[in-house]
């Protein structure tokens, strides 16, 4: 075996099954006697439900049952709970209207589930759902945040006056106002952050399986966090105790946030399977995904920077309206507050920041965290504003950034918006990215392109994010209704092989490989003898799952702590076997030795003794070598870096080509460079998608216009460039691995780099800002509008 520990690009263990078509995704699972559910959804954005006639559907071939919201209400099934409570400026709690599992009384967005049909086959269920007669009376609807808060707008919920979920703020307003009053200059930018549809390639699916004899429920589901689903669904919706409810999240085909949340369909199939006494499978068709998976982003912001005569940032003022959709999804309230406003300092030493956020209900699909969650919104705003400052002051965009960077000797650094950054070196990532992008050679490339009639631009984003979520006490004080620790159970088997049970979940991140590498590193066990188990509440003690780039920083640290316990116990056993003092036992590379002697015992000798305790300190020590650790992080982690995009526009068509993309990120210590590079490339692709291609579009009445892959532009291979990835490392100071997290940086850093590049390419056309996505039509129109400005020069 070659080197397999921390730092090795070990090829992935999970690939063997995926490459042979032997993955085990939820829809691949079939339970004996399985039936199928089809869900009837609203095609209206906002309407009163006058009546539902189920008789024809119920009589259709193969149909076992039809349920509506009334059936759930009759059993006092709870609404889908929200996991985070924000408080208003005046201290009162946010508006939190009930989110029924199946609509009751009203539908509030296109896609809102109204009824479910259970039948013998998928096709029979679908056919019967067409026979439901649902009488709806249209109500006026609102889709955009500004329409929703306009006086006289229709109320999405009676118990959310003015459609306001919360009106929240952060920072020192008086200090910011004073800085603006005495500023040399104020630069303002109005920005939209486009609404996105996550579109993991595996559509959501769920199988509810009730065991009539034991009374046990099993839910197989496409989830990033099975224990969280068990907690939310068991405790708040269906009232099933944990011992009677098992949640399995098997192989999951991508999540990007959209599979964190507890969805109605999970509760429906679990509950209904006890009614029909058969397992029930539901698998989303892609059209359903578009109208029922939580969407992402959708901010409307005003940002102002006060600067002094030299271009130092004095204060930042931000006002944001954010769209919550029709109901609060699991983490939704946290995204535009503690994952957004707290990030507005970025990598800059801006001394005063004040931000106001209004969260608004609309007749659209619920909006929640999507890869990056809040941090891409903050980064887009800050990095666009910094470029606008450069433009308005004439200061070079790189010089301006350097001038305002938090210096590398200033850590730990307390920002004016709550976070304390532990480490970073923004100059190092900037310098390295400038080199990778051959920034110095750009002017020559621009001229070559210009000679061919093309417009070239280069854009920079120097960003930071907060992940590795999160210290439980901190998030608790901010409104989280859960702790955000992580759990690992390390089982050393009698012959020295190891199984890791982790509360994190892999849906593309490669945990079965990366986490096994931690075991190779710490216990000296080869990869071939390490198995990682995740995604099953019956096997894993507990866990909060995977999101917020937390798996390694929090889950990996839990593993380290559990392995520390294994080593500590192993030393006691070794001391007994080698008749030495525990203090004299050392452990390294799978071997326990007595310091200063040649006496050694391997981990296998020790584990064997632990499970066959014939010669064993049985009076003081339990048999077995199996340890669990819960780890609650001390702080967030703070990856950062520099992304540089080089674009070329064809002015005849407005088509943008991303010529080069260079990312240099500081993600802390890198365990598997191959996997980290892949994570960053994937994130950047989603960021370029946001910047150039993707938009969830509603018409004014709340109809989803981009409701299929024919209408919503997913990035394809020929839309994207090669993505060069580099790293510059500073270690996280508060976890033993020094890791920060790499899952989201790509999607956070890249969108402003692309838009900054486009604005740069179009500078002669008087373009100051472009809202995403920068479609060819938008670019072409800007070029047409800017032609007089060009002619006047």
């Amino acid at each position: 075996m070659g080197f397999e520990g921390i730092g090795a690009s070990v090829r992935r263990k999970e690939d063997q099954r995926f490459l042979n078509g032997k993955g085990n995704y939820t829809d691949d699972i079939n339970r004996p006697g399985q039936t199928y559910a089809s869900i009837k959804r609203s095609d209206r954005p906002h309407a009163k439900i006058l009546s539902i006639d189920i008789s024809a559907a119920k009589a259709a071939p193969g149909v076992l049952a039809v349920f509506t919201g009334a059936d759930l209400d009759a059993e006092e099934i709870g609404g889908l709970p929200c996991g985070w409570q924000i408080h208003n400026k005046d201290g009162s709690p946010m508006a939190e209207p009930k989110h029924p599992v199946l609509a009751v009384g009203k539908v509030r967005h296109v896609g809102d589930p109204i009824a479910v049909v259970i039948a013998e086959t998928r096709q029979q269920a679908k056919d019967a759902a067409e026979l439901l007669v649902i009488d709806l009376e249209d109500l006026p609807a609102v889709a955009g945040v500004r329409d929703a808060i306009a006086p006289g707008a229709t109320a999405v919920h009676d118990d959310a006056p003015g459609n306001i979920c919360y009106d929240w703020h952060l920072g020192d307003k008086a200090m910011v106002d004073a800085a603006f009053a005495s500023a040399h200059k104020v630069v303002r930018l109005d920005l939209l952050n486009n609404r996105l549809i996550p579109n993991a390639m595996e559509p959501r699916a769920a199988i509810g399986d009730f065991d009539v004899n034991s009374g046990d429920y099993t839910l197989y589901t496409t989830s990033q966090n099975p224990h969280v689903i068990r907690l939310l669904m068991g405790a708040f919706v269906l009232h099933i105790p944990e011992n009677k409810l098992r949640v399995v999240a098997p192989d999951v085909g991508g999540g990007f946030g959209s599979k964190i949340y507890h969805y109605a369909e999970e509760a429906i199939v679990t509950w209904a399977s006890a009614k029909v006494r058969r397992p029930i499978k539901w698998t989303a068709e892609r059209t359903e995904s578009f109208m029922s998976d939580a969407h992402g982003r959708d901010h409307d912001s005003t940002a102002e920077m006060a600067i002094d005569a030299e271009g130092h940032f004095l204060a930042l003022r931000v006002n944001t309206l954010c769209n919550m959709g029709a109901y609060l999804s699991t983490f939704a309230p946290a995204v535009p507050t503690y994952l957004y406003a707290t990030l507005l300092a970025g990598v800059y030493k801006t001394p005063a920041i004040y931000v106001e956020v209004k969260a608004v209900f609309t007749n659209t699909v619920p909006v929640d965290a999507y890869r990056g969650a809040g941090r891409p919104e903050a980064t887009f705003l800050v990095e666009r504003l910094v470029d606008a400052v450069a433009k308005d002051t004439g200061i070079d965009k790189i010089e301006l950034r350097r001038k305002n960077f938090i210096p590398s000797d200033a850590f730990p650094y307390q920002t004016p918006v709550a976070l304390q950054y532990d480490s970073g070196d923004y100059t190092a990532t900037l310098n390295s990215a400038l080199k990778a992008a051959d920034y110095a050679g750009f002017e020559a490339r621009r001229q070559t392109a210009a000679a061919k009639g093309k417009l070239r631009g280069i854009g920079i984003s120097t960003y930071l994010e907060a992940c590795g979520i999160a210290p439980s006490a901190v998030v608790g004080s901010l409104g989280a209704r859960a702790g955000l620790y992580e759990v690992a159970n390390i089982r050393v088997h009698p012959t020295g092989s190891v199984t890791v049970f982790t509360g994190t979940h892999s849906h593309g991140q490669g945990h079965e490989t990366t986490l096994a590498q931690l075991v190779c590193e710490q216990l000296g066990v080869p990869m071939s003898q390490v198995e990682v188990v995740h995604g099953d509440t019956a096997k894993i003690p507990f866990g909060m799952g995977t999101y917020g780039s937390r798996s390694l920083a929090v889950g990996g640290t839990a593993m380290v702590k559990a392995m520390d316990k294994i080593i500590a116990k192993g030393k006691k056993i070794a001391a007994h076997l080698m008749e030495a003092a525990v203090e004299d036992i050392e452990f390294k590379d799978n071997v326990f030795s007595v310091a200063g002697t040649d006496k050694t015992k391997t981990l296998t000798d020790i584990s064997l003794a632990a499970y066959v305790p014939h010669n064993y300190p049985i009076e003081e020590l339990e048999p077995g070598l199996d340890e669990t650790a819960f780890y609650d992080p001390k702080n967030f982690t703070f990856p950062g870096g520099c992304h540089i995009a080089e674009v070329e526009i064809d002015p005849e068509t407005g088509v943008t080509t991303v010529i080069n993309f260079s990312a240099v990120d500081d993600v802390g210590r890198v365990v598997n460079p191959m996997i980290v590079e892949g994570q960053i490339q994937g994130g950047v692709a989603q960021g370029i998608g946001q910047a150039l291609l993707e938009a969830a579009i509603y018409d004014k009445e709340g109809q989803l216009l981009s409701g299929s892959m024919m209408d919503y532009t997913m990035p394809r291979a020929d839309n994207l460039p090669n993505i060069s990835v580099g790293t510059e490392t500073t270690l996280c100071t508060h976890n033993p691995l020094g890791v920060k997290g790499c899952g989201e940086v790509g999607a956070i850093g890249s969108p402003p780099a692309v838009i900054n590049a486009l604005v740069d390419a179009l500078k002669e056309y008087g373009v100051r800002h472009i809202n995403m996505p920068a479609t060819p039509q938008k670019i072409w129109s800007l070029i047409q509008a800017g032609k007089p400005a060009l002619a006047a020069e």
Partner: protein
Amino acid sequence: MPQVTLTVNGKQHTATVEGRTLLVELLRETLGMTGTHVGCDTSQCGACVVHVDGKSVKSCTMLALQAEGASVVTIEGLAAADGTLHPMQEMFREHHALQCGFCTPGMVMSAIDLVNTHPQGITEQEIREGLEGNLCRCTGYHNIVKAIVAAWPLMHGKVAAE
């Protein structure tokens, strides 16, 4: 209901299907071969690509009955009986061209057809355009392109012409 007889990965099957049954439904639901995936309902994503008589086909876009007498190869049929991976599978692993693995079966089947149909060599741009019908949300395609570039000489038994 009508019957269809076809060969899948070298083995003959006869199944009773509805007229509307899709080839992918026959594979996944009737034959229990779940390696081929369904990622959309508009023929956009390519997660369902299989080979029908040697050509890559979106199996969600073909009726099961249209496969009468056809020879179908799915992702499950690529590796040799002793488990040796097809060079395309091997290069996908080597170049980390998969993350969640959901697009992978269709991506690998399309990639093989792409290399087969470019015996004179293939450029990165041709690969990117050739993958137009396959969506991947995880990788950003960079490593998929690399894997296909690396598989070309292995599949054609020579060094690429470029």
